[in-house]
C-alpha cells in the first residue's frame, strides 16, 4: 500500500501531480488563446490608430514618466501624514460612540452626528468646502495652504469610515471577554484598553487596509484645490503635449502600489477567515 514509485511519490501524490499538471496546461492554453484574440482584435478596431497615438505614445510616456514619479512623492507625503491622523481620530470617535458615562452623553451624540455627516457627503465635496472655504476666510500664510485644508478634508472623511470599522471590531469581541475582565477587578477603561481593543484592532486590520488603499487613490482629489500631485501633473502634461498617455502612466504608478496592497489585504482576510473557522 502507498509504496513510493520511482519518483519517490505515493500513488496518491503521483495522481495529484498529474491532476495539477493537467490543470496548469488547460489554464495556460486558454490564457494564450484569449490573449491572442485580444492582441489580434484590438488593433483591427476602427479607432485603434487614434487611440494608440493619444493613449499609448511611447515618446510621450518616456518624457512624462519621471516627472509623474516625482509628483507621486507628493501623494505619498500627503498619504503619510493623513493615515496616522485618520487612525487616531477614527479610534477616538469609535470610543466616543461607546462611552457609557452619562456626563459624556454629548460625546456620543457628536460621534454619531459626525459619522453620519462625513459618510453622507461625497469626498470631493468635503475637499471643496474645506479646501476652498477655510482659506477663503483670509488666513495668513502658511495657514491658507491647500495642503493643510485638503488633508483635513480627507482626514475628517476617512476617520468617519475608519471609526465605523473600529466599532464593528469592538462589537465583535464577545461579551464574555468583558465579563471575565471585569470579574478580575479591572475598570471599564482598563477592560477596553487591555482586553477589548487589542482584539478588536487585530480583527479589523484587513478592512482598514482596504481603507488605506482607497485613501491612497483619493489623495488625488486634492488636485482640484491646488497641490500638483500625480493626477494634476499628468493633466499638465496632457495640455502641454496634447496627449493622454501621461494619464496611463499615472494609472500604472497607482497600480504598482495598490495591486500588491490589495493582494496583501486579501491574504490577511483569507488568513483570518481560516483562523476563525
Amino acid at each position: 500500500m502507498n509504496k513510493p514509485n520511482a519518483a519517490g511519490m505515493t500513488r496518491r501524490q503521483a495522481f495529484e501531480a498529474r491532476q495539477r499538471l493537467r490543470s496548469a496546461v488547460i489554464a495556460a492554453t486558454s490564457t494564450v488563446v484569449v490573449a491572442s484574440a485580444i492582441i489580434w482584435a484590438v488593433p483591427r478596431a476602427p479607432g485603434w490608430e487614434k487611440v494608440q497615438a493619444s493613449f499609448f505614445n511611447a515618446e510621450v510616456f518616456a518624457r512624462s514618466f519621471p516627472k509623474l514619479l516625482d509628483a507621486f512623492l507628493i501623494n505619498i507625503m500627503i498619504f503619510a501624514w493623513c493615515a496616522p491622523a485618520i487612525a487616531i481620530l477614527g479610534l477616538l470617535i469609535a470610543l466616543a460612540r461607546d462611552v457609557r458615562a452619562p456626563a459624556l452623553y454629548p460625546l456620543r451624540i457628536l460621534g454619531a452626528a459626525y459619522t453620519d455627516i462625513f459618510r453622507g457627503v461625497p469626498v470631493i465635496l468635503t475637499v471643496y468646502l474645506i479646501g476652498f472655504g477655510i482659506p477663503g476666510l483670509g488666513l495668513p500664510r502658511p495657514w491658507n495652504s491647500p495642503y493643510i485644508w485638503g488633508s483635513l478634508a480627507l482626514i475628517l472623511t476617512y476617520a468617519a469610515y475608519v471609526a465605523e470599522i473600529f466599532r464593528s471590531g469592538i462589537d465583535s469581541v464577545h461579551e464574555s471577554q468583558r465579563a471575565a475582565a471585569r470579574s478580575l477587578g479591572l475598570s471599564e477603561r482598563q477592560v477596553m484598553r487591555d482586553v477589548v481593543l487589542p482584539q478588536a484592532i487585530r480583527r479589523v486590520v484587513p478592512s482598514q487596509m482596504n481603507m488605506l488603499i482607497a485613501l491612497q487613490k483619493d489623495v488625488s482629489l486634492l488636485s482640484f484645490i491646488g497641490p500638483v500631485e500625480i493626477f494634476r501633473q499628468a493633466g499638465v502634461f496632457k495640455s502641454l503635449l496634447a496627449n493622454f498617455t501621461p494619464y496611463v502612466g499615472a494609472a500604472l504608478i497607482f497600480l504598482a502600489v495598490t495591486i500588491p496592497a490589495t493582494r496583501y489585504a486579501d491574504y490577511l482576510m483569507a488568513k483570518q477567515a481560516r483562523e476563525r473557522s
Partner: protein
Amino acid sequence: MAKLELREVIKAFDDKTVCDGIDLDVEVGEMVCLIGASGAGKSTLLRCINLLEPIDDGAIYLDDTDIAEPGFDPLLVRRRVGMVFQSYNLFPHMTAAENVMLAPRRVTGRSRADLKDEAEALFAQFGLVDQMAKYPDQLSGGQQQRVAIVRALAMRPEVMLFDEITSALDPQLVGEVLDALRALKSQGMTMVLATHEMGFAREAADKVCFLKHGRILEEGPAETLFQAPQNAETQAFLARALK
C-alpha cells in the same frame, strides 16, 4: 457572622424573576455547591455576588459590609471575590502568564518582573509551569480552565465563585480541574460553585443548595441532601441527575 451572607436577594430581567428571595450563608473555608436544572438561576446568582449584575432588592454581606448597597464600588468587591466561568474566557491575545499578571499589574501597579515569582508559584501549584509562555489556543480545555483559575487566584481573592467550570470540557479533562478545586479547598479557600457534577458535589461540598425558579428549595450538608432529600422537587431532580 459568616464570610458571605445573602439576604432576600431578588434579581429580575425585565419581567422574569431569576433570583426570587435567596438566603444563603457561606462560612470561611466552606465549599457551597449550587445544583438545579438549567435555568434555575445558578449563574445569575453567582454573577450577582460578583456585582456583574446589580440586584433589585435584598442584601449581600461580605464580612458584614453590604456590597449590594446601590453605589458601592464594584471594583472593590471583584478584587476580593474571584470568578471562573464555564467557557474559560482567557484573553486570546495574551500568553497564559500575561493573562494571569494583567489584573495584578493594573490594580496594584506592580511590574511584570515583580509579579513573576508569585505567578510562577501559582502556575507550579496547578502543574502549569510549562504552559506559562503559551497562548490559550495552544492549550487543552483543561489547561485553559486551570489557567483561568490561576488568573482569578492571582488577585488573592477571599472568596471564589465557579460557574460550571467543567461543563465545557471533554470528560477525560474534567478530573484535572476538579483536582484543582480539591486543592483549593484543602488550602481553606471559601468557594461557591454552580455545578452539574453531582459526584463531586457529594464528595467535596460542605453544603449543597438545590435551586429551582430562583429559590433555594432545600439546603444542607452534602451527605444529607444526597442521601435523604426532604423536598419532593429535590428528590425528583436527584433521581434524574443521578440516573
